[in-house]
């Protein structure tokens, strides 16, 4: 390569990425930094936002048990949602993977398609199905004899978990399905020819190999559930607050922006720590699978 060409190949990638880089620094990194700053500002009912550096908002979040309860509820809902998607999504991905070509692509479209359909519309569907104590879900469960008295779904954590699990399910199925694509189907046949039964095959052959897929799906589902807004707001109503709906209230109803910014910053930091931490754990534990 000549000198001029070499110089071009050093400069060219920066020239091509410069516009996007400037955009991201100017309109993403600076606003995020401003939000973190905002969480240290003061606020009063009449004086509005005062640009001073105080720890008032952080102190309030740390000491007022209301916030501890709200964050605990947020993460409890996210954990239950993650468990539910893993327990149902992983077997479904496995069943899907064993279907023949045409059925496989059809059902993949049916299961993954909702991912792109408006979250408001999907949650509205659950609100209609739950609909009070004589909603369709309760009627069905009672006629099947699964429950004696109706379960309250609307304005409860149970309803939020069910609706969120539905919203997040495609991510889990997709993640496990991707892991299954790397699996050699002959291993199953080999295990069978050596006399392993179906339970042994699933427990000893399939499970260990799709575990990384389940775990990476779990990280996605957990972080999206913990920061979900539409579903908790519609199913949970105005009283049952999670982190995202509380931040929304502080910003657009109470107008206490610094406190809302502190809640949002804490959510972001907590999620980044959890996601990065569990990613590192998974990669160490399953290093041989990723290699």
């Amino acid at each position, binding site marked *: 390569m000549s000198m001029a060409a070499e110089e071009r190949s050093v400069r060219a*990638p920066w020239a091509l990425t410069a516009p*996007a880089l400037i955009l991201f620094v100017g309109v993403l990194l600076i606003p995020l930094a401003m939000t973190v700053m905002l969480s240290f500002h003061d606020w009063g009912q009449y004086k509005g936002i005062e640009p001073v550096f105080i720890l008032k908002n952080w102190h309030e979040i740390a000491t007022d048990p209301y916030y501890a309860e709200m964050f605990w509820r947020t993460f409890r809902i996210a954990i239950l949602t993650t468990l539910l998607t893993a327990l149902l999504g992983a077997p479904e991905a496995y069943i899907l993977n064993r279907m023949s070509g045409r059925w496989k692509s059809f059902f993949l479209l049916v299961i993954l398609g909702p991912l792109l359909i*408006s979250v408001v519309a999907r949650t509205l569907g659950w609100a209609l199905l739950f609909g009070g104590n004589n909603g369709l879900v309760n009627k069905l469960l009672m006629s099947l004899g699964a429950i004696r008295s109706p379960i309250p779904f609307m304005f409860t954590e149970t309803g939020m978990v069910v609706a969120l699990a539905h919203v997040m399910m495609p991510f889990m199925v997709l993640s496990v399905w991707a892991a299954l694509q790397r699996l050699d189907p002959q291993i199953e046949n080999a295990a069978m020819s050596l006399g392993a039964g179906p339970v042994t095959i699933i427990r000893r052959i399939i499970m260990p190999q799709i575990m990384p897929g389940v775990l990476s799906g779990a990280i996605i589902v957990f972080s999206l559930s913990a920061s979900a807004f539409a579903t908790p707001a519609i199913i949970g109503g105005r009283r049952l607050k999670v982190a995202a709906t509380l931040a929304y209230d502080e910003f657009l109803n109470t107008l206490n922006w610094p406190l809302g910014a502190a809640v949002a910053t804490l959510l972001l930091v907590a999620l980044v720590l959890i996601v990065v931490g569990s990613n590192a754990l998974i990669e160490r534990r399953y290093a041989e699978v990723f290699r």
Partner: protein
Amino acid sequence: MRRNGPLALIFHTIFVVVMVAPILVVCLVAFTPEGFLSLPTNGFSLRWFRTIANYPEFIHAFWVSLGLGALSSFVALLFAVPAALAIARYRFRGRDALAALFLSPLMIPHVVLGIAFLRFFTSAGLGGSFAALIIAHVIIVFPFALRLTLAAATGMDRTVEMAAVSLGAGGWTLFRRVSLPLILPGVISGWALAFIQSFDDLTMTVFLAAPGTETLPVRMFLYIQDNIDPLVTSVSACVIAVTMTALILLDRFYGLDRVLAGKGDTGR
């Protein structure tokens, strides 16, 4: 490979029914002839679709969403295509960091982005404006535009470009006549996926929209907070129809699993 047993098929059937049920129930209730929420048991009626015409705020919000989605996806591609070409072809210092930065809007919760943009645009004097919505949506759809363009640029046959260069093409001509047509399927799919993401976003937009710049999801959300009636189901049914159309086109054109997995190499 072993076939699915009866137990597996029963599980599969229940699973699919539960996945489809909420979407189906919205579409069914939209056709109710009654004045209240109910499944259409005495025939279908279009009365609630006609009622939408009496609510100009829904119609206006629909056009805002459509314009916002189309425009922000286009602007995102103007930034994403050169960036994707650079990341796909050159090995340079900071390449991985840049790629991580460009994909970061996927990792940051939308509620945090909404707050950050609200704070930023309010201090910039752009609070509640359509321009602010466009810029914010460019950021959130950028990763989708970038990923699909990147997949197309990585899988592209470089020898065609080399042939063009040996015949004297360079710079802009090379890009417009050779490179762009080769990555065009990826670029168009990237636009479509970006459009759907923008069209459906509620969590970030709800912080930025003001009366007049409310998008359809925001309008629907604010309406549902007050009351749930058949009107909002008919609006939802229309939204579902728009997305389904885009979805089926995207599947035929590019393959939905590739779009969603974001991996150019998982061919069908």
